[in-house]
Each structure stands twice: as structure tokens, then as C-alpha cells.
């Protein structure tokens, strides 16, 4: 067959590459800022947008979706074309994808700073942006599958399988976890509540790690590492086996984020078992990558690209061993809520994702500009700075994690808890300082890369459309299709089963939510919906990102029960849209906070935490004292909750504000008794109402359905 001349689109790769670098620096800056705030809370400068609770999601979203996201697209658009021996299906779609994604990122940054958040980790973006993400992802999919259809290479290389699996699974995860009922343009409530929400969230959350941070990058590894080393993959068979094993096993590991919580035991065990099984396919990838360099280690000595890839793949191996270890319940009992988790995340993030991105960019830029890297020495220095940065980041956090976990669990001989929570915080401040130095070094390295690549681009000339030649697949292609059809036609039972599954999915998706909503019958009869004032307060709690430092899940351990009170029961969270169990205890758990302190304590604590807790690292929230509750939103919020199955009485939305004001007046009156003057509709009043409600239901007497009497 006659070879055809065609052109690879490098322009789109260039744009995604620029975006990767730009957002990478921004994301790292946000991370550095957040890290510094942990020992210098004053750097939030008393502003809402710059508190840790707002900055942290900006950091995570910028790194995951903006930095790694654009990195994925850079690598996929470059490698997919060459592996398919075809230009991208549609240039137009490529550009819609590019600009759409960048617009989404900008919208994300703005809205997150302003406090528009769903309160669910790595899924904070509100519903209009979620819809935009879905649209752009579909466009990416059309472009990707369209390119596959018109490919001139029959064999689908393993990297492309990884891209396919990524696309399919991310689409599913995003849609299922983003089910929410909008209340207004930028506010919605999670469709799920409490335990259900927790399970969906971490099914999503772990699979975001699996199918956004791992599988696409493994795909990139399988293309760029062999190319950079000019060696074939060590074992192609292994790559195929571990690919299929990985994608089947990963989905079930989610519950390891919920060990010793109110999630049912069998679900927890399932997560643990699958997490352990995951070691094998993950290490298949690591070993394959490293062994590919057999006989080429002298190249690693010379080439910064390979240095980055080696450390990246090694960190991948470390993180995918550590993760399963942390999924063992006995290890998890120590690690959960501690800084060990953060250390683990950043071995993967800085080591695997970051270094794969850097290696890929150092490989791609000289190639696409037809020149050599400006300075190999500078790139090598970046490599060492980054590697040292990772170590200085992670080791202090391991220390901090072990230290705080130990201190939390230490009893005196008399059987009292030895350390106040605040002591466990102040004790590890030096670790937080070290960690920010590590992150700072890593960022400096990245800036060195930006400079190096800028100088490389300046001395090269860009190849916008790279000429290539290959013969098309013609007859074979349709023969394949016929064969498949013939195959499935020969198996009517298989066809029937598959069709039933497809139909059942559609039906179930419509039916099940209804059942779910109706089945939200409280299992603890004394657990009642939040009052309107408490609901407003809860939304403030979500807006300020309090869950990024405070958990709401007392585990059934002696030290936790001693410190916080009765361990948390699943039935207590049935009306929590979204759940706010949290993942980290930078500050103490709040699940049983209700009634522990007088209202005035909370007032002063929000004004400036150091008034009530000297040495605290919590930022101040003075604007809560001046801002007013948006009572115009109360009715629509109540109606939304009713739709989600929360049993407010019929028509309650019309009178909710009356109850809100009544409860607020009582709180204001109480504060007056402690010499604090506040308008009764100040946001702080709502927040106090919510905080004072936390964990009190299980001790409550059976109540009427109207507003709860406050102390």
C-alpha cells in the first residue's frame, strides 16, 4: 500500500506544554504559601480568600487538574499522534479542548478563592464548572477516539490503552461524584449524605489518584522513557498484563480512606484487600520502566531526562508500596489524619507526577524546536535540587506524622491523656518549617526548568507541523470489524448479557437515587435535621474550608474516645450534605464539639484563635463577625434539602427564617451576657449555632421538629 504524507500537530502540544509549566509554577506557589501558613497563619493577612482553608483547594486543584492535567494532554497529544501514525482527528476540537480547559482552570481558581466550594476534596468545583469539565472531557474523548479510528497503525500500543482507560474511568468518576442539587448559580448540595457521601467521595478520590494521576502518566512513561533511552520496553507482555490487572483492581481500593470510620466493616476490609493486591500491577509498571534501562545506565548518567524518569518511576514504586501498607488497618490507625498521609501524597506528587512532567518537557521542547537543550548542566542541577527538595519535604512530615500520632495516643500512668491537642501541634512546627524549605527548593528547580526551556526555545525554530509518512490500514480494518461482529453474533447469550447490563445501568441510574432518598430514614431516632440557622452555619463552615484542618469523625480508639467523646456512628450523619468527616487533623476533631465551650469561646476563637489558644496556627476569621447571614437563601436551601430527603415539615421553607432569627437572638443574648455585642444576623452567630450542634444529637432527648432549644 502506498505511503501517505501527513503532518503531526505540534502546535497543540506546545500550547499544552506552556500551560503545564505556567500552572505548575502557580500550583507550587500555592502549595508553598499553604505550607508557610501552617507556621505563620498571619500570612493570610486577615482576608478570607487567603486563609489556608481556601488556599489548600486552590493548590490541590491547580496541581492535579491544571499542572498534571495539562501535562497529560501535552503528552497524550504528542504520543497518540505518533503511536497512531495519524494527525489528531480534529484540529478544531484540539483547540476547543485547550482553551476550554484553561478557562475551567481560571474559573476554578477564582471561585475557590471566593469560597464557592462543594466541600468535597478534589471535587470542590461547583456545578457549572463540573458541567464544563464534562463537556471538555467529552470533546477530548471524541478527538482521541477519532484519532484512533483513523490510525495507520493497527496495533494499539500499551500507552494508548492507558489513555483509553483514563478517559473512560475519569468520565464515570466525575459524573457520579458530582451528582448535586443546585441551590443557586454557584451553590449546590451533594446528592449523597453522610456515610453514603463519604463512600462515593473516596471511591472517586482514590480513583482520581488511580486514573488521573497514575494511568495516564504510566501511559506517558511507556512512550517517553523508551524514546528518551532509545531502548524498547523491557517486557511488552508485562506491560499488557499489568495494565489490565491495574485497571480492574484499582477501582475497589477507595475504602482505604475510610478505615475505622462509620463505614461498614465489610466495605473497609474490601478496600484493604484490593489495596494490597494493587502492589503487584503497580510494581509491574515500576519494574518495567526501570528494567528498560538495562544496559543503558550510562545514558542515565549523561541525560537529565532519564534522571528525572528514573527517580519518578522509583517514587512511583515507593508510593505504591507505601499506600497499600497504609491501607492495613493497624498501620492506618496510626497514619490516618496525620502528616504521614501528606508525606505519602507528595512522594507521589512531587516524585512521580512532577518529575515525569519535568522529564517529558525536557525531552519534548528540544525535539519540537529542532535544537538541543540550552543547558544540560542547569537541568542536572534542577534534578538534584528537586530530588533533595522531595527528601526535605517528606522526611520531616514522616517525623511529624509519627510524632503527632504517638502524642495523640499517649496516656499518663493515671490513665489521663498526656498531651493537649495544641501541644501536639506546636511540637511539630519545626517539621512544618523544614517541609516548606523542601517545597521551596522544588519550586526553585521548576523555575530553573522554565528558564532553561525558554532559552532552548529562543535558540531553536518551532516545527509546527511535523511531516511523516505511513501506509494506511484499509481492508484489514473492516475485516476486523466484521470479525468482531461475527464473533459476538455467534454468542447470543453473551450478547444478551451485555445488552441487559447496558439497559440495567440506564434504568438503575434513574431508579436507585429515588430509593436512596427515601431510604434516608434516620437509624438514630434522636438525630434531627439541622435548624435553618445551623444549616447556614454549616454552609459557612464548608465555604471557609474548615474540613481541610478539622476532622469530624471520632474513631473507636481509647485515646480518641477519651479526647473527643463517644465515637461517631453512621446514623449521625444522615442529613450531612456533603459529609464533612475530613482527612486531616491539623486541628482537633470537631465531631463532639457541641456544648464543650460557651458561645463566647467560639466568638473569640474565630476573632483570633490565639486569644483562646496561645500558639495556635489557625488563621483568624474576623470578617465572620461583620458579615451578615444571607437570609434570602434560607428558603431555597430548605427546599433543596427537602428534595434531598431531609424531613423538614411541608411548607417549612416559608417560616424557616422566623426560626432562624429566634435561635440567633438567643445566641446573641447569651453572648451579651459575656460582654459581647453582636448583631443577631452576623455570620458568626450561624457558625456558633452549627458548632454547638455538632455531636449533640445522640445525647439528646427526643425532640419536636422545630428549632432545637439552645443552651
Amino acid at each position, binding site marked *: 500500500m502506498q505511503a501517505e504524507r501527513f503532518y503531526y500537530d505540534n502546535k497543540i502540544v506546545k500550547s499544552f506544554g506552556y500551560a503545564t509549566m505556567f500552572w505548575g509554577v502557580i500550583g507550587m506557589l500555592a502549595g508553598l504559601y499553604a505550607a508557610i501558613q501552617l507556621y505563620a497563619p498571619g500570612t493570610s493577612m486577615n482576608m478570607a480568600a487567603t486563609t489556608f482553608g481556601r488556599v489548600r483547594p486552590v493548590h490541590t486543584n491547580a496541581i492535579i487538574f491544571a499542572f498534571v492535567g495539562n501535562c497529560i494532554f501535552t503528552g497524550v497529544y504528542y504520543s497518540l499522534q*505518533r*503511536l497512531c501514525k495519524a494527525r489528531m482527528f480534529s484540529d478544531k476540537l484540539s483547540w476547543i479542548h485547550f482553551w476550554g480547559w484553561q478557562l475551567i482552570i481560571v474559573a476554578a481558581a477564582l471561585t475557590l478563592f471566593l469560597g464557592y466550594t462543594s466541600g468535597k476534596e478534589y471535587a470542590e468545583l461547583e456545578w457549572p464548572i463540573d458541567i464544563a469539565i464534562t463537556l471538555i472531557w467529552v470533546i477530548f474523548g471524541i478527538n482521541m477516539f477519532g484519532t484512533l479510528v483513523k490510525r495507520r497503525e493497527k496495533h494499539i500500543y500499551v500507552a494508548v490503552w492507558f489513555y483509553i482507560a483514563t478517559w473512560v474511568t475519569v468520565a464515570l468518576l466525575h459524573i457520579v461524584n458530582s451528582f448535586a442539587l443546585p441551590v443557586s448559580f454557584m451553590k449546590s448540595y451533594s446528592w449523597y449524605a453522610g*456515610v453514603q457521601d463519604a463512600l462515593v467521595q473516596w471511591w472517586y478520590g482514590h480513583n482520581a489518584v488511580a486514573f488521573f494521576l497514575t494511568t495516564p502518566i504510566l501511559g506517558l512513561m511507556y512512550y517517553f522513557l523508551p524514546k528518551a533511552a532509545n531502548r*524498547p520496553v523491557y517486557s*511488552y507482555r508485562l506491560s499488557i498484563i499489568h495494565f489490565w490487572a491495574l485497571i480492574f483492581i484499582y477501582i475497589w481500593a477507595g475504602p482505604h480512606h475510610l478505615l475505622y470510620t462509620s463505614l461498614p466493616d465489610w466495605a473497609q476490609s474490601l478496600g484493604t484487600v484490593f489495596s494490597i493486591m494493587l502492589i503487584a500491577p503497580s510494581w509491574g509498571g515500576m519494574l518495567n520502566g526501570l528494567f528498560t534501562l538495562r544496559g543503558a545506565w550510562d545514558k542515565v548518567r549523561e541525560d537529565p531526562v532519564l534522571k528525572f524518569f528514573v527517580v519518578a518511576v522509583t517514587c512511583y514504586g515507593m508510593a505504591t508500596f507505601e499506600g497499600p501498607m497504609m491501607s492495613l488497618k493497624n498501620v492506618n490507625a496510626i497514619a490516618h489524619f496525620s502528616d504521614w498521609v501528606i508525606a505519602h501524597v507528595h512522594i507521589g506528587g512531587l516524585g512521580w507526577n512532577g518529575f515525569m512532567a519535568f522529564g517529558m518537557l525536557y525531552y519534548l521542547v528540544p525535539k519540537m524546536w529542532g535544537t538541543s537543550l540550552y543547558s544540560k548542566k542547569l537541568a542536572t542541577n534542577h534534578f538534584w535540587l528537586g530530588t533533595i527538595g522531595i527528601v526535605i519535604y517528606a522526611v520531616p512530615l514522616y517525623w511529624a506524622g509519627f510524632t503527632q500520632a504517638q502524642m495523640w495516643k499517649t496516656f499518663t500512668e493515671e490513665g489521663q491523656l498526656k498531651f493537649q491537642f495544641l501541644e501536639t501541634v506546636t511540637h511539630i512546627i519545626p517539621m512544618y518549617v523544614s517541609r516548606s524549605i523542601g517545597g521551596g527548593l522544588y519550586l526553585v528547580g521548576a523555575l530553573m526548568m522554565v528558564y532553561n526551556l525558554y532559552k532552548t526555545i529562543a535558540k531553536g525554530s518551532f516545527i509546527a507541523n511535523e*511531516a*511523516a509518512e*505511513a501506509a494506511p490500514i484499509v481492508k484489514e480494518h473492516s475485516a476486523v470489524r466484521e470479525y468482531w461482529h461475527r464473533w459476538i453474533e455467534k454468542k447470543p447469550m453473551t450478547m444478551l448479557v451485555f445488552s441487559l447490563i447496558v439497559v440495567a445501568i440506564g434504568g438503575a441510574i434513574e431508579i*436507585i437515587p429515588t430509593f436512596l432518598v427515601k431510604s434516608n430514614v434516620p437509624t438514630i431516632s434522636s438525630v434531627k435535621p439541622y435548624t435553618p440557622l445551623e444549616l447556614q452555619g454549616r454552609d459557612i463552615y464548608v465555604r471557609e474550608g474548615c474540613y481541610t484542618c478539622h476532622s469530624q469523625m471520632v474513631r473507636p480508639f481509647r485515646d480518641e474516645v477519651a479526647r473527643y467523646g463517644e465515637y461517631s456512628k453512621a446514623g449521625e450523619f444522615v442529613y450531612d450534605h456533603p459529609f464533612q468527616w475530613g482527612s486531616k487533623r491539623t486541628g482537633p476533631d470537631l465531631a463532639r464539639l457541641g456544648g464543650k465551650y460557651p458561645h463566647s469561646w467560639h466568638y473569640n476563637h474565630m476573632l483570633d484563635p490565639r486569644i483562646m489558644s496561645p500558639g495556635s496556627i489557625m488563621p483568624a476569621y474576623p470578617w465572620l463577625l461583620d458579615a451578615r447571614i444571607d437570609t434570602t437563601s434560607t428558603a431555597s436551601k430548605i427546599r433543596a434539602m427537602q428534595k434531598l430527603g431531609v424531613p423538614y415539615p411541608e411548607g417549612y421553607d416559608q417560616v424557616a427564617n422566623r426560626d432562624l432569627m429566634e435561635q440567633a437572638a438567643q445566641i446573641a443574648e447569651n453572648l451579651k451576657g459575656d460582654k459581647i455585642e453582636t448583631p443577631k444576623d452576623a455570620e458568626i452567630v450561624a457558625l456558633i449555632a452549627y458548632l454547638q450542634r455538632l455531636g449533640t444529637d445522640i445525647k439528646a432527648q427526643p425532640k419536636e421538629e422545630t428549632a432545637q432549644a439552645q443552651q
Partner: protein
Amino acid sequence: MSVIIILLIASISVASLFLGAYIWSVKTGQYEDEYSPPLRILFDDKPTESVNEISHQYPKQDN
């Protein structure tokens, strides 16, 4: 906890999709040859007259 049904349906449907894809790939002989794919990616498909276009004047359609 009844949300587990949604998650199971979602996960199993994706898993069956993947299973179907796996069966398809084996049946259509994707894995008959495990030796050439890793080597093939190492070669560039440069055209025989090796001139790379630098401007954006390229044929709109690739044939």
C-alpha cells in the same frame, strides 16, 4: 450504605467495558506480536525527503 449499589453498578459496568475491550483486543490479534511494537515506537516516521516544514503552510487535510 445503599449507595454501594450505584458504585457497584458503575464500577462493574466499567469493568465489563474493560473486559469486552480485553476480549476484543485478544481476539483481533492485538497481542499476536509482542516484539515489534516496543521497537516500532523508537523509529520516527520521517518522510523520505527529510525536510520539516517550519511555517504553518501545510495541507489542510491529512489524507
